[in-house]
């Protein structure tokens, strides 16, 4: 579909999932839609990686799941952030911002590398 599909760095998917849950419990399909919509179709999450990642988060008690009914009355599994998950999200997004800023600075460099003098 989209040729501009970006590969997700390992571990990044987890943060995106946690972020998707910030506004309340949603099911797996809604998580993929959220990520795609927010990234303007730049990030496409494959289902084959999404669900195992979700379950891993559930196992680590970062999210918890409950069966509920979807908008069109179908039985669906809803995920919700736990306190630990919210904390992790906070921490990870700060890490990510610092990382992105650092990479951005390097890529935006305008002066060449000067070796430090060793006296």
């Amino acid at each position, binding site marked *: 579909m989209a040729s501009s599909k970006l590969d997700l760095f390992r571990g990044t998917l987890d943060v995106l999932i946690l972020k998707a849950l910030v506004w309340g419990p949603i099911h*797996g399909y809604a998580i993929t839609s959220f990520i795609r919509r927010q990234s303007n179709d730049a990030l496409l999450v494959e289902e084959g990686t999404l669900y195992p990642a979700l379950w891993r988060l559930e*196992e680590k008690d970062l999210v918890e799941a409950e069966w*509920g009914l979807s908008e069109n009355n*179908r*039985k669906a599994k809803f995920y919700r952030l736990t306190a630990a998950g919210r904390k992790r999200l906070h921490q990870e997004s700060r890490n990510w911002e610092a990382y992105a800023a650092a990479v951005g600075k390097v890529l935006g460099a305008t002066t060449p590398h000067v070796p430090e003098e060793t006296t």
Partner: protein
Amino acid sequence: MKSVPLWRRFARFFGADPASDVKDELRFHLEAKAEDLMNQGWPADAALREAERQFGDLVAVQRIGERMGEEMERQKQLRDYWTDCIQDVRYAFRTFIRDRGFAAVAILVLALGVGVNVAVFSVVDGLLLRPLPFADSQRLVWFKGGKSLDEKIRVAAGLSGETYTVDAFQEYQRNNQSFEALTSYQTFYGSQAYKLTGAGDPKQVTAIEVADNFFPTLGVDPVLGRNFSREESLKGGRPAALLSYFFWKNQFAGDPAIVGKAITVNGSPVTVVGVLPASFDFGTVFAPGMKVDLFVPAVMDFWRGWGNTLAIAGRLKPGVTVARAQAEADSLFPHLKSLHQDWYEDYASTLTTLKDHVDGKLRRSLVVLWSAVGIILLIVGVNLSNLQLARAASRAKEFAMRGALGAGRGRIVRQLLTESLVLSLGGAVLGLVFAWGIVFYLAHQQSIVLPLLSTIRVDGAALAWTFLIALAIGLLFGLAPALRISGAHLQSAMKESSGGIASGRSHERFRSALVVSEVALACILLVGAGLLLRSFLHVLEVDPGFHPDHAAAMTVDLLPAAKPPELAARVAMLHAMIDHVSTVPGIESAGIVDMLPLDRNRSWGLDAVGRSYPKDRNDAVFVYLATPGYIGTMGMRLVAGRDFSWQDTSDAQHVILINEASARREWPGEDPIGKMANGVDKNPVRVIGVVADVHESSLEETSSPEVYIPITQNTDVEGATLVVRTRLDPSAVYLSVLNALHAVDPGQPATEFRPLQSLVDRSVSPRRFFVLLVTIFAGLGALLAALGIYGVISYSVTRQTRDIGVRMALGSTRGRVQRDVLFKTLRLAVAGIVIGTAGSIAAARLIASLLYATSPWDSKTYAAMLLLLTVVALIAGYLPARRASRINPLAALRSQ
């Protein structure tokens, strides 16, 4: 998320199912996706196919999901389980705090049961189960000679019948194939006196002569210095000694520089070559109750001509069994005998592991003790069940409520089991404290002569045992009431105002059965204890043949007298000693002997002159060398003839006294006075008197033939012991006696003054130990049974308060009510006693071999048990009966 209808919440009502959870979740995803696609204009079936295509490997993801789901489910269950457990434990604690009386009684009862069990376990573990404190101790073997001798003859020969000559030992050492090493020690350690001088006051010390390889064979390494060298155990070798750890600590203040120094023993220097480790205690293994200070090398050439004096132990080669070593001994000893025509006997031997030798006699007694505390544990467990059931009656509503609120039967059983486990573990902790106290007390009882007793302690094994029995009791005796309580009719319990009558009645039957079994178990304990107690009393009644009261003994030094000419000087000194001591105020008489009865012994042969004997006849007699006056001082009875006199010198006709057993054997039906005998002297000796039998080795065995030889005529003494008879307390005359001895010989060492009674006490101490414990256990059992009876009767009175009230309102008297309750108690007791008597008769047969002069069916014991239990039951029933008779009919009727 929309709110979920109630029925949806029960979608997984029949348990979690991770597989279908995963399937449902993924199906929803595909359907949602397909729906989106259809909204974009895809046809329905193509949309679903496209959704599946985009998903990729559906099966693989599904498999991952299932695996993780199962894992999570397992963890969740575990977590739930522990949460429930913690809840149960908390709940149990809350109920116990509310019901303090019940909890305290239950824990105390459990602690008593666990305490005695752990204490006895520690004793059994220390004495029977734990290996000896030697390296690879299972390979150590003990030789017991005299296998081919008749049991009676061997006993009559005492130590001499079970020991070996130097030749026999060395020949066997050279020729056997089974042993890595064979070693020996001198059993007649009393024959040599060891006096330590030059380190404070002269002091009598106890030394054992051991073969040069004794400690290496046992696997004992000195903590300081080294073992004996070969050269040191040869004739003319440099005198050497190893110190026991405690002697080193006490006498030499643990001086590490002692090794290599010389100490003065019997006037000559002996080099200390090493100090033995604290873990090695010769007494606990080889000679219970004996404290050894020094070990010196046995010079084999010196002992060669002395007959049977060595005890042999060996270390098997790896892989050789005791049975194989025994088979070799069975053929090798007779073979050696055929090569040595001069050997006195064939030394056929019984080989056992050293461990069996040490604890063989104890095993049965300890098993009895263990069974006794096992029975107590059963009674305790039954009591616990009983108490739980009694509580259940008042808690019926609580459980009915929990049941109505959805707690399953399993959940309630679990709750009740948790409660009994908490109780039993609490009891175990307190019980450990009890056990520790008991074990500490027993381990420090020097008057109990049991091997290894001083080594017992509450250790890791005992802790494990405690935990095990606490768990077993909690589960086993918690389960029955838990099942009964949880199975009670819930509705009826809810409806009844005070516990369910129906379930109450069935509980009461169950509890009555429990009490009957308690009484029966207590009955078995009481009969067993009673029989052992009567045996003990019979043993105490045995006339030892001398009067132990108001007499005491102390070791004295003799002048050396290797040859008859030196004997006169020795005799003169002994005579002077006795004369001096006799003048001490308060001393009635004094005498000297080489060995005391019930202490050590040795045996020689004795034959009547002029009689022909069958070749294999037993001529062993116990030999005692004594001064004139010894017989009277001991309180022994001269039944015919005269005592020795100082005129019986070595130039005069050599004479002996014999005991009645000797007279019966050698001169049956004749007057032995004036008869001549061979065997104890170079020339025939004349019998001048007969003394009443003395129990020489044990009060429980009949006396063997004994012969008394005057010290004035024979040089061959085994040490010397002064015996005094006094009107005062022996300790009061100790110093004046010692002064009197010093007046004759200033070099006399200050040794301990032993009351003769201590010989008797020592000899009966193992039996005293067992009787004491079994009696305490039986008392405990009876007490616990009484508690059980009290509980049941008391509960039934409470339950029938209204009935009793009605009856009293209808004219029943207080006496009548009281009688009825007591009658009910008696019925339980009698049922228990009848069953218990049957059990006792079976149990008594098992302890028959431990009884002395008491039949296992001793009617007096059974009658006493019957009386005691009935009285105990009546007391236990009287308290509730009195309460029943005081019920106010009006209050009782109004209250419910």
